[in-house]
């Protein structure tokens, strides 16, 4: 079991947040005496692994199971379901209970909804006639700290639900989560939102404050100064591009799941045939913390340098007599050897992907699309991908990128590509296409594209970027500065006002609200990027900006934010809130309709 992420360096007290969630879960378990079988759904299991160690669960007499259609095999007479409040999970419960009844097994059933009870889910249970057999409760887990500067609301379907199904439950959830943060850290005085969902979340947040006010008088100066809410919808270009930071690439090729990646043991140099091992990836690993946000090219160099210097030390060690303290230093360095090996192995494994011509070709194409040159070349490339039946997700990523930058495709091409897609991948993807169209990601062109204007105004394409010593966030995509982060940069620096014209060309409304009784605290509307002393919290810490991405954020974007935060003259620490950490891959996948 992987360790919980190390949170002690977090700019706000995230440990207390995690401890609280841990305590709440333990309380639930304690209140149900004796041995019990805890059934959780797969995705929740991932989130819980960041909250509590499984050994701790075992201490409380828990037998852990994942929710599956098959009846539960256990000797326990008490079964606790801990599930996200999702309609489709309910039928499993009813089928389990009915199967138990048929077999004459008597059990006590408890159902805890995460994060709260749901009328709709309970309605299903009522219709299945099992509701009265369940003791229903809730486990208010609204967010999970992924790392010392990343909070996830664990809503992997939020984007799809909002955009395709019109189900905005996620927005209430996000507002509630932020409101809960405010109970710990004070009312956030500045809120800036861009995008339909973001503005809505800001509204809900305000009404929550009106309904159940955080008593700002007791809290002193709020720890979080500004909240920036950003819809993924505003920038669908960035996630569709291949991430080129170290962590981003690991995610692209190996899929990071809840802060760790699962690999064949052989890759990590362990000779165990067919065995998988889990490699934790978070800031507890000092070397990883140092290199995670670097462009992969640079990571290779850094690792090489480190290895060289280590070899140097080693050579000196064998030749000359050393003092004890020198030996001690050397041994200390040796301690970092496992981390070195881990990342060298990982980097080497990644390079087998990055050196493939197909990958280089794709990168090339992404840049061509982003630069909005040569429409025809892009079109033909995608067409060819479809004909070659390359993995559907890869095709969709480029297709979305292509459609979004062109504000849709001309009807002829739109229909043609869609048909080709259906022919290559099967007609069941009609539903997928329909989803994409509803979400506006793949659509008929109805107006002229303003991508060029946006690109120019926000300087999204930066030539001659030095990835080793970057001076701009564009290094994360080797030349493309993520639109989302450019907006955040603006929002932090000067608010929305100076870029209102550009904002209007991006999807959704925007808003800027001042809240709480802190009119006396320095407004940083007028602040330049230079740190004003008044803006610093008294104890010398920098004030804090919470950037929330509704619909997911990629590792590359997080890296770009960390880069921003580390810049000289930056007066703020940044923490990221997101519905889920995504990649183009996982994001596109949510739109693919599983037939049946």
């Amino acid at each position, binding site marked *: 079991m992987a360790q919980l992420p190390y949170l002690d360096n977090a700019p706000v007290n995230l440990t207390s947040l995690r401890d609280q969630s841990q305590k709440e879960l333990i309380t639930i378990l304690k209140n149900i005496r004796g041995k019990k079988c805890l059934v959780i759904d797969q995705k929740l299991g991932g989130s819980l692994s960041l909250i509590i160690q499984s050994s701790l669960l075992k201490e409380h007499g828990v037998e852990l199971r994942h929710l599956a259609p098959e009846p539960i095999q256990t000797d326990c007479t008490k079964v606790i379901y801990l599930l996200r409040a999702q*309609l489709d999970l309910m039928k499993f419960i009813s089928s389990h209970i009915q199967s138990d009844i048929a077999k004459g097994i008597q059990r006590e059933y408890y159902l805890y909804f995460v994060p*709260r009870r*749901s*009328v*709709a889910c309970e*309605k*299903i249970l009522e219709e299945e006639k099992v509701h009265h057999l369940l003791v229903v409760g809730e486990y208010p887990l609204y967010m999970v700290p992924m790392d010392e500067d990343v909070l996830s609301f664990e809503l992997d379907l939020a984007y799809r*639900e909002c955009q395709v*199904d*019109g*189900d*905005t*439950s996620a*927005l*209430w959830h996000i*507002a509630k989560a932020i409101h809960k943060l405010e109970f710990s850290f004070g009312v956030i005085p500045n809120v800036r939102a861009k995008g339909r969902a973001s503005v*809505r979340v800001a*509204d*809900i947040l305000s*009404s929550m404050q009106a*309904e*159940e*006010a955080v008593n700002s008088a007791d809290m002193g100066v709020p720890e979080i100064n500004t909240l920036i809410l950003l819809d993924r919808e505003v920038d669908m270009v960035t996630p569709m591009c291949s991430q*080129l930071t170290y962590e981003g690439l690991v995610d692209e090729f190996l899929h990071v799941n809840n802060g760790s990646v699962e690999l064949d043991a052989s890759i990590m140099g362990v000779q165990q045939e067919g065995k998988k091992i889990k490699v934790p990836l978070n800031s507890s690993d000092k070397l990883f913390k140092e290199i995670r946000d670097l462009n*992969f*090219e640079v990571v*290779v160099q850094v*690792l*090489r340098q480190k*290895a060289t210097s280590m070899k140097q030390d080693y050579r000196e060690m064998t030749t000359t007599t050393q003092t004890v303290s020198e030996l001690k230093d050397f041994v200390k360095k040796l301690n970092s050897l496992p981390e070195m090996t881990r990342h*060298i192995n990982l*980097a*080497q494994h990644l*390079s087998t992907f990055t*050196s493939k*011509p197909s*990958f*280089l070709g794709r*990168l*090339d194409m992404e840049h061509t699309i982003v630069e909005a040159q040569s429409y025809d070349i892009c079109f033909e490339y995608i*067409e*060819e991908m479809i*004909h*070659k*039946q390359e993995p559907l997700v890869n095709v969709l990523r480029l297709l979305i990128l292509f459609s979004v930058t062109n504000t849709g495709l001309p009807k002829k091409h739109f*229909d043609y590509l*869609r*048909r*080709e897609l*259906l*022919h*290559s991948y*099967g*007609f069941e993807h*009609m*539903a997928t296409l*329909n989803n994409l169209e509803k979400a506006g990601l793949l659509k008929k062109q109805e107006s002229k594209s303003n991508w060029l204007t946006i690109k120019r105004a926000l300087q999204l394409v930066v030539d001659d970027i030095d990835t080793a010593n970057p001076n701009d966030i564009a290094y994360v995509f*080797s030349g493309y500065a993520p639109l989302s982060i450019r907006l955040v940069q603006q929002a932090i620096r000067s608010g929305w006002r100076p870029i209102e014209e550009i904002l209007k060309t991006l999807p959704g409304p925007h808003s800027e609200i001042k809240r709480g009784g802190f009119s006396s605290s320095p407004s940083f509307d007028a602040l330049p990027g230079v740190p004003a002393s008044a803006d610093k919290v008294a104890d010398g810490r920098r004030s804090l900006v919470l950037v929330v991405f509704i619909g997911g954020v990629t590792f590359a974007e997080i890296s770009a934010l960390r880069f921003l935060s580390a810049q000289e003259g930056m007066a703020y620490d940044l923490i990221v809130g997101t519905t889920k950490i995504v990649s183009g891959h996982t994001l596109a996948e949510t739109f693919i309709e599983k*037939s*049946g």
Partner: protein
Amino acid sequence: MASVSVAAEWQLLYSRYYRKPELYQMQWKHIDLSRNKVACAPLGGPIAIIRDDSKIVQLYAESALRKLRIYNSAGLHLSDTVWKHPGGRLVGMSWTEDQTLVCIVQDGTVYKYNIHCDLIEPNISMGKECFEQSVVDCVFWGNGVVCITESNQLFCIPDFANPQPCKLADPNLEEFPLCMAVIEPQYTMSGNVEVLVGVADHVLLVEEDGIQQVGDGIGPVQKMVVSRNGKLLALFTHDGRLLVVSTDFSKIIFEYNCESALPPEQLAWCGMDSVLLYWDDMLLMVGPYGDPVRYIYDEPTVLIPECDGVRILSNTIMEFLQRVPDSTVSIFKIGSTSPAALLYDALDHFDRRSSKADENLRLIRSSLPEAVEACIDAAGHEFDVSRQRTLLRAASYGQTFCSQFQRDRLQEICKTLRVLNAVRHHEIGIPLSIQQYKVLTPSVLVGRLINSHNHLLALRISEYLGMNQEVVIMHWACTKITASLSIPDAALLEVLLDKLRLCKGISYAAVASHADRNGRRKLAAMLVEHEPRSYKQVPLLLSIGEEDTALMKASESGDTDLVYLVLFHIWQKRPALEFFGTIQARPLARDLFISYARCCNHEFLKDFFLSTGQLQDVAFLLWKESWELGNNPMASRGSPLHGPRIKLIEKAQSLFTETKEHHFESKAAEEHAKLLRLQHELEVTTKQAIFVDSSISDTIRTCIVLGNHRAAMKVRTEFKRWYWLKVFALATIRDWDALEKFSKEKRPPIGYRPFVEACIDADEKGEALKYIPKLSDPRERAESYARIGMAKEAAEAASQAKDGELLGRLKLTFAQNTAASSIFDTLRDRLSFQGMS
């Protein structure tokens, strides 16, 4: 000196002073306590009076019907009601801790009244046995009661808040006991009530599960009473002795011979220090040492034990008998020279502009703080307002001369006294001493004021003490609604809002819900409009039938769970079409309904789409269902189920066509149906169930792989696709001859790149070499050579392309081949891959 008169009112019992200030002249008229059963609530609570039906009394100009009357402690009439309960005589009545009057009648029924003489339903029954045996006597304590029946059985209700009558162990008595007393559950070892029963010459201790004989040899006990802390017991024996023993009878604390054969009518503890015995005209106060104090009364009295004394109620006055507090003694004791007394004296001199004031102060300089403290404390214990004032002035005067005194102490006592004086006013009639007030706590006091409808005072007090006013305002609003049946909704709303506004965060929904329960639905609707918390507002709106507003509010709140709540409510309540109309107008509700129905109620969803004319959505649903049919494990492939599947798809197609806007979808559905048929045929002819549900491309590929080129040709619908597919399919089965033949059929429209890629992917360099020279772009040629490791050819092609960057990149590619020697170099070399653009 003024202080002389103060001390003159005191009585000395051994070394302790007692005083008996008059609290009230009773406001009532013509009340004779001896004719009535009286129940007085402790802690300054109300007094309930009803004519005693066990005594023969003469009726004057009054009705034969008995009336239950409730007064406050000052004898101010609060309420009355006619007593006409069946069930025989009223055996006993008492007030519970929450100021409910409980009355027990002979048949074991317990009637409960609030302070307004409203009967609180439901009545409690002591049980069938009690009913049959009939109750004779009962003893109350805080929140419980023990009854004894004619058959000498004991029954108990341990807690009126949760009335569950239980029977205690059978004491096997032959005759009716002489007396009874109760040790409250909180003071017993078992946590259950213990009843002391005086029989013959001993006492029985009766519990739920056993009896025990105690106090042997004490002799027949006529009367007994347990002290407030449950540790001591006062007994009056048949030979006129008063005994105080510990409740476990292990030791006798003291004994006093009263020289009266007649047992006292009332026996009560005064605090913990002395015992009061009351006979017809005399009140005797007995302490452990010294001579008892006698008070003579020429009218009947009732003793009301309190935590720090006893209130004495007679027909005309109420008094409070208490030990004089030490601080008061130190100031007012005749000839006292304590610092506090000197300070008090100093103020007197100061007021008379006498220089002796300063002299006094000098005398007590060092102990000034304790003098101030004593004055403050004494003021707190005082009932007389002018004496409070004098004492406080003395404290304040002394305080100015001492630097290190806690200044808020004075402020605090002033606050407390203001509250006490306010509630002691005879209109309110709650004569609390400061100690009782501390026991009661301010919030309970406010609660009592509310219950007696003294809302304004309650509000002022909670405001003054910085307590939450919500409770008061909420209660006021609800009471106002109940009491204002004749005020029109709009006017009442104004009145209510005016007050509700005083308190931020108050639950308008709770008030509205009360209005609704009182049949004021319209008022409820108006009130709930003001509720800011949607999770309170919406359910209430539903309960008062305002579904549309509820739906609007729920949608606005953004809380989807609330929207679902309303949705299901309306769904259940309204006919389908009306329901559809309602949600169609609300996008969020509509979308949530669709999500829910998609998961569990397809048919109803189709009805919805049809009703709103969204034919394409019906079509999508049908199409999806066709897939579900295909995935049904019951339906093996190639089964007749494909018939219904195709039918569903065709139905979907015709619906798409009908919308006139979904040509693409319609065409796709048509093709899908066609493909399924074709695949079905293929499965029949090849006898292999591998075609259905694969895409067109996959179908073609499968055909080629199977060598069935004719079928493949039949399936292919499009030219370009054909090349990619055929090349890859041939490479898959490694049919290189066929591939070469295919390349020569005619010049491929997509060039030779697919051929090269297929060969390289299959790791067939030789085959690839056949096609690489045919590539038209030298860059592509160079890269292809490089990929199969032919450096020289690659370099040549690259130089042909005149592309320096490409050359450099290729060079890097080949740099990898150099062998590495040392371990470390290997390490480094593993990293020397090429970077990305």
